[in-house]
């Protein structure tokens, strides 16, 4: 593996600025790495070799003219297949969108292009982002680079595995209930869910509109911050986009990386521990809390009593929104059309298409959502869930009145084996226990690598949550913990990942 693919995006950016390498060289190195390992990892649904190299050549030409568009101009990136890319197939991991080529770019994708980042390809995901293991992709699972028999998390397992396997220095993910952060935890990488409204949702194929948020998937906190600076900010095409100036997250990450936590009040969430939490995950978490204390943080325990209802609340709100959103896949305007024999009506075509085009998990959630929204059950399920959403937001408000950030392990366990929970939906849903509250309340969160669990030698994650709009805090504290870990471990966690066989 070349030095290029092991480098952080920030280092690659410096090298481009210094003239040590070209964007074409960086892009070729990553495309070669994809060729060598992606047969086994399957992080990508599609690799756009020609497009990426053309973008890279343009970037090099711009830089030669002294017109580089920003620090990341020329640094390649992978994009989750739930974001529309003009001219590049966008499937959402579903058969119903197989081969669909969007006629427009998502705003996040436009911003990547404007900033000059060559797009390597589209990454694998659970179908329509429904899942925590990437096993629900209609195109086959992605495998965890730490152990190819295990899941890479989900729904954004492709993006996380791509950066963990050094196939891309940067990737974009989306997080509705943990789909950026939980894959980050189980692959030893960094993932950030920004404040709801901080990054445009235009062109992001909606799973649950009130919860979805795109964000960075990287190997370091600084890289995530630099990427967030590129993709974030107000977009008039998204009515929920926040209209305000954001501070530089790059600066926040740089400030945090000195590892000084003095004056920072940290709350440990009582409810995100106990039964069902793997001992090795909890042990590493406690050690990191102790590290923060030694670095000057003041740590208190904070109770958020409504969080115990977050999972149930989420699994009513999400299917309700998803069943409405996915109604647009009706076989009429784009995507798959299955025509039964005879002279079928539009409705019969719709029913046959949706049966053939959607996988099990999507069907489960559409039916659950249809149930939750049906008259007679609406008040008991959906109405009640919306009220509990209020209680969860109030818990966050009360907690942040006393502390600057809240922390927990990102996921209750390390990566499980492929197939282990595939037919047990409730067991699968429990993976998102710690990440869901942030989506319900719209607050930002980061997962940073948190060492290996003793039982299985697999990565765990440390989650930092901040009040809405205070995304800079997750970068500051995340970068501080990352620096403290690097001192302790003598290098990044991914240095300890077993090498992948290359072909």
């Amino acid at each position: 593996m070349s030095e290029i693919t092991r480098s952080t995006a920030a280092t690659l950016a410096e090298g481009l600025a210094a003239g040590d390498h070209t964007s074409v060289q960086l892009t070729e190195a990553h495309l070669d790495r994809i060729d060598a390992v992606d047969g086994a990892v399957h992080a990508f649904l599609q690799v756009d070799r020609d497009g990426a190299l053309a973008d890279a050549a343009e970037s090099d030409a711009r830089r030669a003219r002294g017109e580089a568009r920003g620090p990341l101009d020329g640094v390649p990136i992978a994009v989750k297949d739930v974001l529309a890319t003009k001219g590049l197939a966008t499937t959402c991991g579903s058969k119903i969108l197989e081969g669909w080529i969007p006629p427009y770019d998502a705003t996040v994708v436009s911003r990547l292009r404007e900033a000059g980042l060559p797009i390597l390809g589209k990454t694998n995901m659970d179908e329509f982002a429904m899942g925590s293991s990437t096993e629900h992709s209609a195109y086959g699972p992605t495998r965890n680079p730490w152990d190819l028999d295990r899941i890479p998390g989900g729904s954004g397992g492709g993006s996380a595995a791509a950066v963990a396997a050094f196939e891309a220095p940067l990737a974009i993910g989306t997080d509705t209930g943990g789909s950026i952060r939980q894959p980050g935890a189980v692959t030893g990488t960094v993932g950030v869910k920004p404040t709801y409204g901080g990054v445009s949702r235009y062109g992001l194929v909606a799973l649950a509109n009130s919860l979805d948020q795109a964000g960075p998937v990287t190997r370091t906190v600084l890289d995530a911050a630099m990427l967030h600076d590129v993709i974030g900010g107000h977009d008039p095409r998204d009515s929920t986009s926040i209209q305000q100036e954001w501070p530089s997250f790059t600066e926040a990450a740089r400030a945090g990386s000195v590892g000084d936590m003095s004056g920072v009040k940290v709350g440990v969430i009582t409810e995100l521990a106990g039964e069902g939490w793997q001992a090795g995950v909890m042990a590493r978490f406690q050690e990191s809390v102790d590290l923060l204390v030694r670095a000057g943080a003041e740590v208190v325990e904070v109770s958020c009593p409504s969080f115990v209802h977050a999972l149930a609340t989420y699994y009513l709100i999400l299917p309700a929104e998803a069943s409405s959103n996915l109604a647009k896949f009706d076989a009429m305007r784009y995507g798959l059309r299955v025509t039964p024999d005879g002279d079928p009506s539009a409705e019969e075509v719709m029913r046959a298409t949706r049966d053939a085009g959607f996988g099990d998990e999507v069907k489960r959630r559409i039916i659950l959502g249809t149930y939750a929204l049906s008259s007679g059950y609406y008040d008991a399920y959906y109405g009640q869930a919306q009220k509990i959403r209020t209680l969860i937001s109030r818990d966050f408000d009360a907690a942040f009145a006393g502390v600057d950030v809240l922390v927990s392990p990102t996921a209750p366990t390390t990566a499980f084996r492929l197939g282990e929970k595939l037919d047990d939906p409730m067991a699968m849903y429990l993976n998102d226990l710690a990440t869901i509250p942030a989506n319900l309340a719209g607050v930002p969160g980061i997962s940073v690598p948190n060492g290996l669990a003793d039982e299985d030698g697999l990565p765990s994650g440390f989650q930092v949550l901040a009040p809405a709009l205070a995304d800079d805090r997750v970068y500051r504290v995340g970068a501080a913990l990352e620096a403290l870990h690097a001192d302790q471990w003598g290098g990044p966690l991914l240095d300890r990942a077993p090498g992948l066989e290359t072909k």
Partner: protein
Amino acid sequence: MPEISRDEVAHLAMLARIDLSDAELDHLAPQLSVILESVASINGVAGDDVPPTSHALPLTNVFREDVVVPGLTAEEALSGAPAVEDQRFSVPRILGEEA
């Protein structure tokens, strides 16, 4: 909390416009019961005095200036269509036999 029966799942599938096979109904109905039983735990947790939240952050409706901005061309809009006729989406008959 009521268990969800196989017939109810079949009815919901019809409402959601998904043809589920018998095998799928057998498979999905018990799983949905387990999920519903589990999410039913929220019943009665929030009292009548708690307002519902539909979006986590306060939202106001957004208008833009009433000016023309470029949109998709007809060709672009039709580019993913399963069937096209005369620059329009071509769809199966809408009305049933009995209509």
